[in-house]
């Protein structure tokens, strides 16, 4: 499947990345080195690879060279809501943020719940010729929570995981069947954990801030109850479960305990959940309205600790674009979600690496190696013959978030004006540079 990208993004000329710090968690490598790419593949990584004929040398002195970043959780809004984002604009935003691959959630209009829709997303992703786009299929037909989709057919058409994201899988019975059936085909079920009878019309975290603002709260328990359910079902079935956007301290603790007893579970932390708390909602800021909601200081600390110890082994953005006038409403009436592709790397470095929570190698693991493994994707490694998907980033670059410069069609971020450190300089897909940020002021 990886070679399909050549249709629209033919492999670039042989490329030698020279002068950088090469980080490849899959090989335990972190040090100076050179990386040679040819015909869309990694040829080799070494201390000094000379100057082979016909090879373009790219000077990456002072920069980090790592396997391409992979985001398992993005909403591309196409088909149906192209005013917010398209597959092409989302793939370009991803490339600008340093991602070489993204996984598209199926909650479009209509939802991606059959092989034709999966094929459409895949084809549009190829045409975008930016980051690779991997479709995820819905768990249930119409995401209605009633009967399973044709999961095998969707996998044949290119789906890499199934999920009803945007909503939970409504009943435990259906979730059990989804886990067992998906396990038959070796793909994970990604779960948006929310008990809708507990979130019950809530628009932000339930706590003192929601009480003061007079907004309906979503208690931690709405998420925790569902995480507990899904972990027990993964244990029952032996299937692979991926828990999306974990926001609660009890959620982190339950996942940690489940993994210790052998449950096959991976889990996401989002940059907004490890950076912000429900204080960000003060003054009814709709750009901080997101589901699951921004929680308390204790929850944020637990999410950070989960990233540090690997309980939350994947950093994913839950990139959720909305048109500006959809967020320009009273808080209750604004949609949930914020864009994340173009701020994720900077937030992860600023909040997690600069503060000493994790080192850069762990960061690359959480944003590349672990996500590749979680969804069985090519990449996540600089091993010989791996796809030539490489991210080159400057971990020290200071920049200020200016949504007007986003490649995404949407601007809904709570991080406007925030100073960050770390940004992508080159994003290389299939050996071709799809984002060149050298000399560009972001």
């Amino acid at each position, binding site marked *: 499947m990886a070679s399909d990208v050549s249709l629209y993004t033919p492999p670039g000329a042989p490329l030698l990345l020279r002068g950088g710090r090469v980080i490849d968690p899959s090989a335990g490598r972190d040090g100076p080195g050179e990386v040679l790419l040819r015909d869309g593949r990694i040829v080799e990584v070494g201390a000094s690879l000379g100057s082979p004929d016909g090879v373009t040398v790219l000077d990456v002195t002072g920069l980090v060279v790592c396997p391409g970043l992979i985001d398992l959780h993005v909403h591309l809004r196409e088909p149906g809501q192209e005013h917010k984002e398209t597959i092409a604009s989302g793939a370009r935003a991803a490339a600008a943020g340093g991602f070489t691959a993204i996984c598209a959630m199926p909650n479009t209009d209509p939802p991606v719940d059959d092989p034709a829709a999966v094929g459409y997303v895949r084809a549009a992703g190829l045409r975008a010729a930016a980051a690779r786009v991997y479709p995820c299929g819905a768990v249930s037909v119409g995401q209605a929570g009633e009967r399973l989709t044709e999961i095998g057919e969707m996998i044949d058409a290119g789906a890499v995981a199934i999920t009803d994201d945007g909503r939970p899988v409504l009943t435990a019975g259906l979730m059990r069947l989804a886990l067992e059936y998906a396990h038959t085909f070796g793909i994970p079920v990604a779960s948006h954990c929310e008990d809708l009878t507990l979130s019950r019309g809530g628009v932000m975290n339930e706590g003192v801030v929601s009480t003061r603002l007079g907004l309906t709260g979503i208690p931690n328990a709405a998420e925790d109850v569902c995480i507990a359910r899904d972990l027990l079902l993964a244990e029952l079935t032996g299937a692979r479960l991926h828990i999306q956007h974990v926001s609660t301290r009890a959620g982190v603790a339950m996942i940690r305990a489940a993994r210790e007893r052998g449950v096959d579970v991976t889990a996401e932390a989002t940059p907004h959940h490890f950076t912000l708390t429900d204080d960000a909602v003060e*003054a009814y800021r709709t750009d901080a309205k997101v589901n699951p909601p921004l929680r308390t200081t204790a929850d944020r600390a637990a999410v950070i600790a989960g990233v540090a110890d690997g309980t939350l082994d994947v950093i994913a953005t839950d990139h959720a674009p909305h048109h500006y006038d959809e967020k320009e*409403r*009273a808080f209750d009436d604004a949609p949930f979600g914020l864009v994340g592709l173009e701020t994720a790397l900077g937030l992860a470095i600023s909040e997690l690496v600069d503060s000493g929570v994790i080192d850069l190698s762990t960061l690359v693991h959480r944003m590349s190696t672990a996500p590749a493994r979680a969804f069985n994707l090519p990449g996540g490694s600089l091993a010989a013959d791996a796809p030539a998907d490489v991210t080159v980033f400057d971990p020290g670059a200071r920049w200020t978030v200016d949504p007007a410069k986003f490649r995404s069609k949407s601007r809904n971020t709570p991080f406007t004006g925030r100073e960050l450190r770390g940004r992508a300089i080159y994003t290389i897909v299939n050996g071709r540079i799809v984002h060149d940020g050298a000399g560009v002021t972001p």
Partner: protein
Amino acid sequence: MSSSPMFLGKDLVGLENLSADQIRAILDTAEPFKEISERAIKKVPVLRGKTIVNLFFEASTRTRISFEFAEKRLSADTVNIASTGSSVQKGETLVDTARNLEAMRIDMVVIRHGSSGSAQFLADRIPSNVINAGDGRHEHPTQGLLDILTIRDHRGSVEGLKVCVVGDVLHSRVARSNIWGLTKLGAEVGVCAPRTLLPRDIGEMGVQTFTRVEEAIEWADVLNVLRLQLERMQSGFIPSLREYNRFFGVTRERLDRAGRDILILHPGPMNRGVEIDSDVADGPQSVILHQVTNGVAVRMAVLYLLAGGVPERAEAAKHGE
């Protein structure tokens, strides 16, 4: 006391962001305005030439009429817009409605809206003065002010008084405005409700929490009894109105047991026999109709101050000076 023409700032969105001095000044300003409503000819030229829009996205009788009387008795030109039958019902967004009104060059908007934060939203986007007449479950500042004015009329001061808000605190903007206003003026505030109708962490707003109405009555000098919306039963917060009255109703018997002269307020409209019994609502401790009278005076004071009036000139302004 400040004599700035922007004494309250541009808007009145809530009591949370007012100082104790500002709240006292509004109450003091309301005093001279009370008398206007007692005259044969109830009109003074304070807001002559000002255009005010009453923008009501939720049904309201009492608050809308009270604002309208206040505006008309101050000689403002008023327009009422209710959501039903207006462009709002046709899908126009709040921001577009506001911008269209603004384009017609209005001076003030009084807004009632079902979403918390909507008054602030509007205030941030238009240059007109915005008065919050109730936003979701957030605040209803003029109701809080008139409650405090009424308590002050009967008890001289609210400082040191124990005021308990009884009822559906979870869904109540009146409760939040009472909590902010009363605590800023030095009262102790309690809330009393079944736990399903108490918001999370309400204690962190500096209030005492009661779950037995007898204990609340035992503690309080003043009870502000909230209306129990009938839909709360349908959505499962309480099992039945009958049971609610049995365990949380403010009844004659419960008041008599306390044996003290407890002042009874209710923001209306009342469900007699649910949150309050008729012999309490109509009894000697009830000041419920006095609240309604004070509502007009408080709203006059707010309109006057937001239009640039200063508290110490209110009496003179009344006479067109």
